[in-house]
């Protein structure tokens, strides 16, 4: 049999055999294998993608956490500052109030003191007046025994009075 002339019988057999093998393998052989492998490849790719996403999310979470901590810190310092401010204000307020109160008390005390002083002075004056009236009585009683002296005294008083009036007028 020549090597380079295709034999008709063999061509027919080969077509038949290869056709059948192709049909069987294309129906039940290779698609099963390739599909399964493709499915697994998809699964692996999905897994990798999901892992990446999870990593990303974790990173975001950490960032969010940091942000939250920073926010909290800011809030904390703000509250502390406010507290200090209000404390200072309160102290200031209290001080002012205390001052006012003290001033009021002082003023009251002063008025009371002056009132006391007034009444004390009035008392003293009365006593002095009584005393001087008494003294004057005693003095008068002794002096009026003499007529001249009485006249003299009256004159003297009158003079005094007039001078006092004049002074009053002058003023």
């Amino acid at each position, binding site marked *: *049999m*020549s*090597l*380079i*002339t*295709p*034999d*008709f*019988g*063999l*061509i*027919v*057999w*080969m*077509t038949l*055999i*290869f056709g*059948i*093998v*192709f049909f*069987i*393998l*294309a129906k*039940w*052989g*290779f*698609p*099963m*294998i*390739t599909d*399964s*492998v493709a*499915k*697994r490849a998809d*699964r692996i790719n999905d897994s990798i993608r999901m892992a990446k996403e999870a990593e990303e999310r974790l990173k975001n979470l950490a960032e969010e956490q940091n942000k939250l901590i920073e926010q909290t810190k800011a809030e904390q310092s703000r509250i502390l500052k406010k507290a200090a401010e209000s404390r200072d204000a309160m102290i200031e307020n209290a001080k002012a109030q205390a001052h006012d109160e003290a001033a009021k008390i002082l003023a009251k005390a002063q008025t009371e003191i002056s009132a006391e002083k007034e009444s004390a002075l009035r008392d003293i004056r009365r006593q002095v007046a009584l005393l001087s009236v008494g003294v004057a009585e005693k003095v008068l009683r002794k002096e009026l025994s003499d007529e001249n002296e009485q006249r003299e005294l009256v004159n003297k008083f009158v003079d005094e009075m007039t001078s006092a009036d004049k002074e009053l007028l002058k003023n």
Partner: protein
Amino acid sequence: MKKLLTLILAILLPMTALPAQDAAADSAAGTSFDMNEYLYGHVRDAYEWHITTVDGKAISIPLPVIVRSKATGWHIFSSKRLEDREYEGFYVAPQSSKYADKVVERGADGTEVRPLDFSVTKNVCGLLINSALLLFIVLGTAKWYRKHDAVEEVPKGGVGLMEMLVSAIEDDVIKESVGEEYKKYSPYLLTAFFFIFLNNLMGIVPFFPGGANVTGNIAVTFVLAMFTFFIVNVFGNKQYWKDILWPEVPTWLKVPVPLMPAIEIIGIFTKPFSLMVRLFANMLAGHFMILGVVAVIFLTAHMGAALNAGLGIVSVLLGVFMDCLELLVAFIQAYVFTMLSAVFIGLSRPKPETDKTTK
């Protein structure tokens, strides 16, 4: 890896010796060593499957001869009946005839007439055995996926090896060369690859059920190339035919003499032709090389023991090398056939848009 190498060598070493034993038996029968008969006898198709010759007596597996004579109709008989004689008017034509080594019928006027010959020859038998083996391997692999959840499990052993090969061919060859619509063509290309690969491998095995020079037979590669030819041209899209009949070249190349279309049309046929010849020639040459190296032993048989032994050792070592090379070639040729088929299919489905953008 080392284990694998040892295994390969363990298989190959006896292989190289077997044709030797075969031929040695021939020469022991007293006949002088016939190089032509030795070489062609091992690579050509035959009506029986010759295994070895012991004491000048050929031991072979008889195969059915199926012929249809124009005069007497269908005849089916064992090839044993054709050994050195005529049976029902049929006989194997002598070397001098133009139908040398083929079954012919003696016509009424004494001339040789070639009947329609559908005999299950050595190659057909080899094809059947190899195809059964291929079906067993691939369907066995597919069965694993049917029984297991491939998403959760990864196969080991033989199934794992098949998965690796299938994935490698699909990902590196088919997807790359065919393009987006690769899924439709993937079963054919994978079948072609494993069919050729397995037949190539079985061709290297020197004894039954291997040793039939299937992929080194032009009828077999012709059918494979024709499959690719039909798939390329039947499923080729509009753009493909436009590129052939009215390609984007200066008008004077198309009218009045359709130079480019003519070249393109010839190209339709040269592509599968090259596929056919490449596989056929490579496998045939591989067989010839191994046989030639082994033949050194018999050619030097009468040149004295020392020379024969020395060259015998060289021949065995070279034979081992050639067999290893053939293992590589078996894979490469299957790979190349698949890749080129995939490329031709990819070329038959060009995208019209890309053409317009480049213009």
